[in-house]
């Protein structure tokens, strides 16, 4: 499991990226910060092999923050400022990868794996980078999450927003309470959890559901 730290002041993007990476079987987001100085402090408490860092953040430039991280983490810059000048700055600061925020999840996931494996993508041409990333596999959902049925996903989404009573779930989904219990048992098994609260947390982590 690759531990990932996200430093981005745009909460919606950071949450989306966090859920997307958590939905993958081999990456786990250990923290989200919204400034350069917070990144270094958070890494002291929550070590992460890879950090995904934005450039423009309050309280300091993300690239400057990377230059002070040393070997604490391997940084990938993901920014709206994806031009050659910033790429060169990032490379000089020690970043291993450099992407626009429009990067597809599959590409970013492969980049996280490659960087965690000790590769540096930032000096490569686009073609060289794509060739290298191909060797780090396609992104796919966590096996447990991938095996969930649509009805089980619906139940997880309701659990995530606080609807946890069996009768209430049955009323919302127009099914019997016995059927609800059967679906919950299957969910617990697929996600390797033991209760409804853990199932809701895992659903949020995997990006299947959003908290209320």
């Amino acid at each position, binding site marked *: 499991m690759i531990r990932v730290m996200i430093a*981005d*002041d*745009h909460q*919606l*993007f950071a*949450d*989306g*990226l966090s*859920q*997307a990476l958590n*939905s993958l079987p081999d990456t786990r987001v250990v923290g989200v910060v919204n400034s350069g100085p917070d990144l270094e402090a958070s890494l002291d408490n929550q070590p992460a092999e890879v950090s995904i860092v934005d450039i*423009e953040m309050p309280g300091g430039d993300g690239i400057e923050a990377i230059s002070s991280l040393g070997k604490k983490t391997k940084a990938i810059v993901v920014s*709206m*400022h*994806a*031009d050659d000048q910033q790429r060169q700055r990032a490379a000089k600061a020690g970043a291993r990868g450099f992407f*626009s*925020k*429009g990067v*597809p*999840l*599959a590409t970013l996931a492969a980049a996280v794996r490659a960087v965690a494996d000790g590769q540096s993508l930032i000096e490569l041409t686009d073609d060289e980078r794509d060739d290298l990333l191909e060797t780090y596999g396609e*992104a*796919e*959902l966590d096996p447990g*999450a*991938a095996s969930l049925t649509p009805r089980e*996903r619906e139940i997880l989404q309701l659990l995530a927003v606080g609807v946890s009573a069996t009768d209430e779930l049955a009323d919302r989904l127009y099914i019997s309470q016995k059927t609800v219990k059967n679906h919950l048992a299957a969910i617990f098994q697929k996600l390797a959890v033991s209760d409804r609260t853990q199932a809701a947390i895992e659903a949020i982590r995997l*990006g*299947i559901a959003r908290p209320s």
Partner: protein
Amino acid sequence: MLDTPAPWESRVHRTVVIGQWVALTIGIVSSLVQSGGSPQSLMAMGVAGAYVVGTTLAQEEWFWRRFGVESICLIGALMVLVTMTLTGGATSPYLLLSMGPPVFATIYGGVRTGLATGILSGALVTLVTLANDSPLIDIAPALALYLIFVLLVGVIRRLLEDIHQQAATLAEEKESATKRLESLEETHGALLRLSEDMSAGRLNAIEVGADTLETILERFPGSAGQLALDGDEGSVVLAARGIPDEAGHIYSLPLATSDTTVGNLELTTTQPMSPSDLAQVAAIIHPVSVAFANMRLLQDIVGSAVAEERVRLAREMHDEIGPSLASLGLALDMTAMQQADHPEVAADLQVLRSNVTKLVEDVRGSVADLRNTPGPTLTARILQATTSFEGGPPVVVDLEERRPPRPAQIGDLTSIITEAARNAHQHSRATMVVISGQIDRSFGSCSIVDDGAGFDPAHEPDGHFGLVGMRERATKVGATIKFDSKTGVGTAVTVEWGSK
């Protein structure tokens, strides 16, 4: 004494001449009545007649000559004295005629000369009276008449002189007022045109500069001028008219308001300008200077507002729209993965994802554009580059540029097109090079066509004409470059980037 004869002097001169003829007639008649046709009477008649005829025929200008009036009046006084001596001295019937010389002296020489002539005449009459043993009382009427006539004519002369002086002063003032009026009319005309331009929304610096310069040059035939505004990068000539005469008189006048100088007006005139001329020019350019200062202020305000708005938009797009779209893209990726069992749905989601990726890239490009200060257009850059080509065939630039290429692309695109045009201009032996095409920010197509020698595409002259460098630049900015050439027909280089 006045330097030149005034109209009133001619009229008075004629009046005195007529008066002398009347006095001569009276003298002749009275003399004939008193003494009949005695020889002395006839001789006096002859001398008096000669005097009157002489003064009648005398040109006015003779009186104005040096010692002219003194000489004429002295001779006249002696002739009249002879006449009076022959006809009874102080009681002579020609007494009235003897007023002539003092009167002429007063008219042309002033009261002092008149009095001197009168005293001379009086003294001579007194001598004659004493020589004839006549009572001195006889000369009293003569002396009184001399005095009265001289003073009367002197006063009249002074009055006429004052009137003449006032008339001359009024004429000068009228002329000066007319000139001022003309100047004001021209200034008013210039302001009126300025006002009309403003009302019609045509208040641009070039039109105002040209109107102003033409207004000024109309006043000074043969002159030339140049009106320039001070800019951030030096002086900018707004209007230039005429060819300056190398031997002309050069004047440099600032375009200034009370607190700032916005430019300069340089005039070259064939004749020196008087202080009045310079004041008139200053009166014309002052309101124009104020207009230019206001325009510059307005431009600064608008420029500042636009810059602030660009920053605000860039921040909003960077901080809100871009990341939100990127987040949407990640959510679509996750959803597509969740729908792996439904390939059709996953494929639709992938299309949607691609569109979101393109949107994110567009937002990113727009943020970069907004944060860059807008520079010259591609057309302006190419025009500037090609005008520096020396000799050779003409280079025609016919580009339809709706919006300039993105800042990250425009420099390399300019280099590619300029290099292709330079090759055609210097090496193709063409009669004309045409640069044409259409540009609209992210996409564009530009052709550089010549009718020169061309080359064999199978043996592309890569090493000599920078074709490798052009291709590298094209690749760098995501453009394609194509060479079509035929020996003896010409070459067409086509650069294309982006797609609609």
